[in-house]
């Protein structure tokens, strides 16, 4: 309960008016002061507001697709005495943007009456939960107010489909298991790799009989072995990475998580082992694995883990990239390659990629471009970013640039044409 001090000056003003009234023998002034006294008397006598409310929140669709507009209806019923002045501010979850009608309402409620207000939010990836409604109640003359939060639940769970035919060629760091990544190892496979001298025990089907007929010497065909890879998808989700070309556009983190989800789907279908991690103060880590259960777990992690949340982490949380790198290296399997999704707006992801590549983990960087090309500041930021990407390429890291206008598949194709195997 706090005093609003709204009427603080009225008493003093009334005393001055009374004084002037006596001085000039004006009965009207004394009567005017009596009016002020009436206000002050009611202010002193008014009951303190004690809101006792029952709040019900209805979310029209609790499992929408990303970008859907969802109506939220809040009904507030007064279960206590009359409330003359009631201000309601709904606690919309951080990840959801209100697109229509403010999530606020002001009204007066008689005992037993109910008020309803409606607003619309745009669904965003994640598991969003409403917890409370902020209530500010004031007395009839607004002299005292009481601010409380009334508990009221509500949930919205938005899981993107993540089904793309997007493929990005992986690098040649593989596990010993059979898969789809072509390697520089001769053996069994489909594609021609080399011819070598026949050795005892080579299968008859692999002997080059044409050459044997021509030269009389036996030779064995070697085919390029195709193996499975272990891939860890790392999404740069530091506060710095929550950038977009315009206030309404998707942030780089949102695009990164979407791309990671699509690629994970495709890679898992091909039998690769896929893990995920967030380069963020809100650490998220899912060890590489394969199979149906893991696919579901990976999707769940990308959608709901706070590390990949659509809203930036608290900027005050300490993030020491050295410590994060060390921890990540300890967890990373020795034969894992890394797909790093980062807008590369500062040096941290560059250093991360270079160090990992130097340690023998092949790194591919997918970089969603967050720079608006139509403004000088954006062009400058874009220039700095392309210098960073050039530095990465010089260090032997594969880089796929991804502009907001094109789908990931197109960006991947364009970049892959320049990559050597």
């Amino acid at each position, binding site marked *: 309960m706090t005093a609003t001090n709204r009427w603080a000056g009225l008493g003093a003003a009334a*005393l001055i008016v009374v004084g002037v009234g006596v001085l000039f023998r*004006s009965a009207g*002034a004394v009567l005017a002061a009596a009016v002020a006294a009436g206000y002050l008397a009611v202010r002193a006598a008014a009951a303190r507001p004690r809101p006792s409310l029952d709040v019900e929140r209805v979310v029209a669709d609790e499992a929408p697709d990303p970008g859907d507009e969802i109506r939220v209806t809040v009904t507030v019923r007064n279960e206590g005495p009359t409330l003359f002045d009631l201000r309601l501010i709904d606690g919309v979850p951080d990840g959801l943007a209100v697109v229509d*009608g403010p999530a606020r309402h002001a009204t007066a409620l008689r005992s037993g009456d109910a008020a309803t207000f409606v607003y619309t939010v745009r669904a965003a990836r994640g598991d969003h939960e409403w917890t409370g409604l902020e209530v500010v109640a004031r007395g009839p*003359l*607004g002299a005292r107010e009481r601010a409380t939060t009334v508990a009221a639940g509500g949930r919205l769970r938005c899981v993107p489909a993540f089904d793309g035919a997007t493929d990005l060629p992986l690098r040649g760091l593989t596990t010993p298991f059979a898969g789809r990544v072509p390697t520089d190892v001769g053996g069994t496979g489909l594609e021609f790799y080399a011819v070598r001298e026949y050795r005892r025990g080579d299968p008859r089907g692999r002997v080059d009989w044409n050459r044997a007929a021509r030269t009389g010497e036996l030779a064995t065909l070697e085919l390029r072995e195709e193996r499975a890879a272990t891939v860890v998808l790392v999404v740069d989700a530091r506060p710095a990475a929550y950038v977009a070309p315009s206030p309404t556009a998707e942030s780089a983190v949102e695009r990164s998580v979407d791309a990671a989800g699509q690629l994970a789907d495709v890679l898992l279908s091909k039998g690769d082992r896929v893990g995920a991690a967030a380069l963020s103060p809100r650490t998220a880590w899912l060890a590489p694995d394969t199979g149906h259960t893991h696919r579901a777990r990976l999707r769940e992690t990308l959608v709901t883990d706070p590390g990949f949340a659509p809203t930036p982490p608290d900027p005050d949380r300490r993030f020491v990239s050295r410590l994060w790198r060390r921890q990540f290296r300890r967890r990373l399997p020795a034969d894992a390659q890394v797909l790093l999704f980062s807008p590369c707006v500062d040096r941290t992801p560059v250093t991360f990629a270079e160090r990992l590549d130097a340690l023998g983990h092949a790194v591919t960087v997918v970089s969603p471009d967050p720079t608006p090309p139509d403004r000088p500041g954006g062009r400058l930021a874009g220039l700095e970013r392309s210098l960073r990407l050039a530095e990465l390429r010089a260090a032997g890291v594969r880089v796929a640039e991804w502009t907001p206008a094109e789908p990931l598949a197109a960006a991947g194709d364009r970049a892959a044409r320049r990559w050597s195997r």
Partner: protein
Amino acid sequence: MTAPGAGAEPTAAPPALSVGLAVGLGGLAAAFLAAGTPLAGAVALVGVALLGASLSAGSVRLCATAGATLAGAVVAAAATAAPPAPIVGGAVLGVAAWDVADHGLGLAAHVGRETTTRRNELVHAAVSLAVGGAAGAVAFGGFLAAGGGQPATALVLLLFGGVALLAALRG
């Protein structure tokens, strides 16, 4: 590059109904006081102009200044020997105008302009006018019943009573 997600904040401006009511009540108060003496009416008009300015600027301090100017208009009416009826009417409407304006600014801070606040504003304005009207009617009725023209001692005693009452109610 910009951080997304901003831009859904409501505008912190007082609702249109409160602005209209406050300026309307203020204008009526000015008309009452002008019926008393032209000087009081002029000061009250300045107060109403300040009230309008405070609402468009969203400034609580300017609103308090406007309220003080309206009180000044009542003082001016008393000093220029205006009859009691216009002073009492002007005081009631002036206090109500300031109250509605200040309430509107409070709503602006809490919920913003786009929110549905009609019921809240109307109830507040009605309560405010009812309190002022009742107090004015009781005081003026008492004054008429006593037949007017009090001797100076009675007025001084009234003053003491008024001061004691106000001192008790201020806390």
